[in-house]
């Protein structure tokens, strides 16, 4: 049974933070940020903006793109590393914000930057088991609110931006994109995890592995509530594992890299994306990039890139799109989507 992506959406805070604004805080040069990440600017949420607000805006846009309303949904899958609250999760808050949304299941997935793959895999399984028919999936972050803006954290804090992306999964095909000429189906998802790297990319607090209290003054003083990253290890593992997963997924679907028209990666770092492309002989033109404008938006990143690819008409008919991600855990993988002609499907 096929599962279709029938709408995509995006939402970004209006505040633009350029390297020129951020660099003095981190005691680095603006040029250093761009050279080491490919990022020129990112968006940061205002004090009055929360992750669920961004998420709801992205889901609304995706619903509009799919030509349905929130009342048509029967499942909500939300992904974030920067929720409004520790409890409850973000998905119920988004359900509350969506006008007319029924009292449907609303679940959080904490899969970090690999979030879109888990959302696609779970969503497809729910639809194929007929537990759901139309699912809204989103990735959303307001992680600027948790950044350590001291020079010692420059390598990590220069990367992150805020935003949200969303998609609608359906058991029925619908034409997507500005021209409404293509149908996008999810063909296969491959996800892997190696928990031996769990501490290489981490936010330790609040957490029950930190002693008697899950957050206290000593933990705050030590900065355990900020992200920490073993950058060299992350990039070494990310390039290799993303490449291997993409290759395995393509081979098990009896395809070759030449069949992939567009690659929609997690927007981690431009240098990482180039290394990934170089390893698989993928030309730059095939790789969707938005981190130069939005930075690394973690859970939202690949959702935003997919929405951008749809809006920009970068999904040619009768071709394949590859979504590739890597995130904390480490967990990583790839999803294969097929782009078909809407007229061929009787929808044009």
């Amino acid at each position, binding site marked *: 049974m096929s599962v279709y992506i029938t709408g995509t959406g995006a939402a970004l805070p209006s505040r633009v933070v350029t390297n020129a604004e951020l660099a003095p805080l981190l005691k680095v040069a603006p040029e250093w940020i761009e050279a*080491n990440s490919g990022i020129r600017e990112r968006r940061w949420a205002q004090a009055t903006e929360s992750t669920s607000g961004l998420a709801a805006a992205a889901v609304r846009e995706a619903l509009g793109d799919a030509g349905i309303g929130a009342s048509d949904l029967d499942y909500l899958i939300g992904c974030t590393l920067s929720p409004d609250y520790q409890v409850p999760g973000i998905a119920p808050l988004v359900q509350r914000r969506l006008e007319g949304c029924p009292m449907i299941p609303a679940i959080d997935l904490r899969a970090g930057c690999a979030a879109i793959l888990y959302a696609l895999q779970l969503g497809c399984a729910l639809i194929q088991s007929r537990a759901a028919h139309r699912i809204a999936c989103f990735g959303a972050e307001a992680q600027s609110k948790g950044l350590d803006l001291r020079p010692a954290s420059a390598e990590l804090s220069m990367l992150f931006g805020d935003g949200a992306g969303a998609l609608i999964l359906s058991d029925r095909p619908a034409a997507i994109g500005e021209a409404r000429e293509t149908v996008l189906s999810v063909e296969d998802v491959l996800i892997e995890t*190696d928990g031996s790297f769990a501490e290489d990319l981490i936010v330790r607090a609040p957490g029950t592995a930190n002693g008697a209290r899950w957050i206290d003054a000593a933990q705050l003083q030590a900065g355990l509530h900020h992200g920490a990253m*073993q*950058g*060299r*290890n*992350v*990039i*070494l*593992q990310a*390039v*290799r*594992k993303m490449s291997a997963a993409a290759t395995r997924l393509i081979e098990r679907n009896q395809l070759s890299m030449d069949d992939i028209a567009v690659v929609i990666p997690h927007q981690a770092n431009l*240098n*990482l994306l180039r*290394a990934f492309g*170089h*390893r698989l002989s993928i030309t730059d033109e095939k790789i969707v990039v938005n981190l130069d404008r939005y930075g690394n938006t973690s859970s939202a990143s690949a959702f935003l890139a997919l929405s951008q690819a749809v809006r920009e008409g970068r999904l040619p008919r009768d071709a394949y799109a590859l979504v590739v991600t890597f995130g904390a855990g480490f967990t990583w993988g790839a999803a294969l989507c097929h782009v078909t002609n809407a007229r061929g499907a009787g929808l044009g």
Partner: protein
Amino acid sequence: MLTTGVMSFLEDAARQARTTLPDRDSSLFLSGVLDSFSLVDFVTLLETECGIQISDDQLRPENFDTLAKIETFVGRARGAQ
């Protein structure tokens, strides 16, 4: 001894970083010769130039921090094959 190809890569990286190769026991990272991104290309080159397979478990930056550590790593990897 590391191959000419490996040494050429490191010398090129040092030139691009506007520095020189440090002595055998000094850090290639701290000296600016290797960074997170050139390390990816360096490890790939090491595999092809030295005819070794580097497993994910071995793919730790500390194994490639100095010329001496790289030589030791390559020697062990060749011996294990």
